[in-house]
């Protein structure tokens, strides 16, 4: 069957997300006022006409399962195909003790699933990539260039934790695969790869048989001359939020209308779970400027340069400045917050003051009462 099949990896726990990563994998990190990171890869897939998507999970996935449900928010609740949740059912190691050592091991863990893929092409994506990728274009380029593997990369060498970078020649073919760089160079990999289903199965079997687990080392780097690896450069917004600092900076970038326009283009809408909350209400004394505000919030105080998720309450006299407040955070009267990222159900009591810095935003873990 012609077409694209999606596989999303959602198993990595990013230690540098501090409290935000305690209870969830990076892919279920809330972002942009009403989304989870995984909504972006899922929507990119669905917007490219993908009907079958597998999500590979491992550990700390309760939050992810809860979010995905049957997949109906992305039209992926189907009789044939649709969303398939893939815990490592073929995994040889003791369940839950060891994290996957690489994508190859993760794919080997669901090897029989790969056998049932109906489509000729597969796109591998990380669940924590926040970008609105035109995957239909990527596939078109993949077929046109007759590449074996198309690697999607950003038009920058921005430093990210454990990032992969590609250097290409003038035709766009990958010349060098780089990682563990002190000073990154080349193009930042968005960890999105298109290849034929046949080749994927071959590579997984071949590597796994030799005890090789790493996609980038044992496939991308080791086979760069043997296989035709082609770059697809994406110049739009793309972030893999692997540290609190990056999470914070990227959240703040959403206050830029040009970035929102591109990331939330109506041509490829980002779909997300609904919230069933009432309209947001700004009170008579409330003031809210340069901020993104989801539904069900009540703003009686001051909110500046912030991102508010559903159901946030900012009481009279409270000040919220340069903050990201997750679902149902309450800021009581007279409290002052700046440079704070508050996880769900946090409560800041009256007249408390919390000041982080743009270089080190304060993170409050879920349910904290300050």
């Amino acid at each position, binding site marked *: 069957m012609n077409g694209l099949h999606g596989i999303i990896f959602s198993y990595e726990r990013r230690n540098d997300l501090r409290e935000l990563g305690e209870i969830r994998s990076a892919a279920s990190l809330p972002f942009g006022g009403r989304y989870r990171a995984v909504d972006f890869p899922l929507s990119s897939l669905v917007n490219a006409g993908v009907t079958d998507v597998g999500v590979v999970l491992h550990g700390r996935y309760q939050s992810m399962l809860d979010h995905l449900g049957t997949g109906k928010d992305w039209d992926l609740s189907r009789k044939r195909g649709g969303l398939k949740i893939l815990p490592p059912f073929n995994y040889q190691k003791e369940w839950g003790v060891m994290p996957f050592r690489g994508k190859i091991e993760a794919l080997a863990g669901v090897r029989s699933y790969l056998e049932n893929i109906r489509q000729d092409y597969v796109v591998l994506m990380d669940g924590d990539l926040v970008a609105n990728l035109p995957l239909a274009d990527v596939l078109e380029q993949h077929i046109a260039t007759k590449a074996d593997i198309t690697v999607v990369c950003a038009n920058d060498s921005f430093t990210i934790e454990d990032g992969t970078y590609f250097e290409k020649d003038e035709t766009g073919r990958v010349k060098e695969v780089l990682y563990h760089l002190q000073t990154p160079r080349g193009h930042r990999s968005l960890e999105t790869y298109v290849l034929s289903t046949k080749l994927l199965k071959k590579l997984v079997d071949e590597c796994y048989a030799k005890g090789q687990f790493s996609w980038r080392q044992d496939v991308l780097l080791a086979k760069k001359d043997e296989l035709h690896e082609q770059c697809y450069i994406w110049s739009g917004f793309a972030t893999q939020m692997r540290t609190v600092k990056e999470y914070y900076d990227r959240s703040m970038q959403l206050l830029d209308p040009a970035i929102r326009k591109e990331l939330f283009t109506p041509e490829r809408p980002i779909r997300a779970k609904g919230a069933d909350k009432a309209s947001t*209400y*700004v009170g*008579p004394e*409330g003031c*809210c400027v340069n901020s993104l505000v*989801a*539904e*069900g919030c009540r703003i009686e105080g001051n909110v500046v340069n912030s991102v508010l998720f559903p159901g946030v309450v900012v009481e009279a006299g409270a000040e919220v400045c340069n903050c990201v407040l997750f679902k149902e955070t309450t800021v009581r009267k007279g409290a002052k917050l700046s440079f704070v990222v508050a996880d769900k159900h946090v409560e800041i009591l009256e007249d408390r003051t919390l000041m982080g810095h743009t270089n080190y935003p304060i993170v409050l873990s879920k349910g904290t009462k300050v």
Partner: protein
Amino acid sequence: MKKECIAMLLAGGQGSRLYVLTSDVAKPAVPFGGKYRIIDFPLSNCINSGIDTVGVLTQYRPLELNGYIGSGQPWDLDGSTGGVHILPPYQGAKGGSWYKGTANAIYQNIGFIDMYDPEYVVILSGDHIYKMDYSDMVARHKAAKAACTISVMEVPWAEASRFGIMAVDGDDMITEFAEKPKEPKSNLASMGIYVFSWQALRKYLTEDEADPNSENDFGKNVIPAMLNNGEKMAAYRFQGYWKDVGTLDSLWDANMDMLSADSGLDLTDDSWTIYARSVNAPPAFLGAEAKVTHSAINRGSDLEGTVENSVLFTNVTVGKGAKVSYSVLLPGTVVEEGAVVEYAILGGDSCVVGKNCRVGGAPAEGEDKKLAILAPGCCLAEGTEVLPGIMLGKNGEEVSR
């Protein structure tokens, strides 16, 4: 599949007093409260009351309403043994007819109701904003061993002659019913919400259908016939917020009520969520110069101007220097830079108020408000003025009321 209780929702009305707002949609599909439509209230009340089978009777302009209800999933009404069913008028072997009246609409769907063989049928309409536990009302119906229970609320005596008024005895059993009486005997007004024992209703509907002089209406024919025959009719007293939003003024009032907790209309209560089919859009953005106060805002909106005492639905744009006050902006309304909108309902659906336009105005001291109304899709060229009380259609033509 037997059900103890099912609901039938009368959603076929045009709502002609909403004029341009219902020229293309049925009244129950009219947007309300920033993110809802009127029909979300009875549908959510049903599921919150434990009623999982609802027939929605449609007739006037059903396209948008049908699409909105869809599978019923947003209200959890997509179960395999019940759920929401759209029931339009239909043709049979011996012909068919439009729904002639509220009672006839139910009569034509006796087959649907019999399929569930219920003990009780709740009859609802799609033009009221309220939160009500129908299971309480059914409990009252059972306790009174009534054939019919009508929910009533106290209204000011001065206004009683505008309603259907119930006179009751000491046990709150209905002794008399008068439609818009000149000299009301009580101030208990019918809210148009009925619980019937199905077998009793079935009998009266059949008799009513056989009567060529009947208007086939619940209030005018069926209820009086039951009373005359000495059936046990109970009143169920409802306390709380309830509003008929059948007119432009009352629709505006109810939207404003949502902004003030003391109106009694609280939609933030998690124990009685009003569900809606939501629009997919990013969160609202309030720009650096935005001044939004005492207002409701929703997804997909981009607000750069001043917004006061207003209800803004999804995907609304208010440009820099624009001012919106005491207004209701339906989904997709655009107010361009420098425009002023006061005391207005703007119909959305790409309704555009061009730069520096003026729409509506505040009422003079001691005078009643006169709302300016723009139809869905109505676009005003730069600098246009629309006086208070004026209503414009889709193509900018004036529509009289």
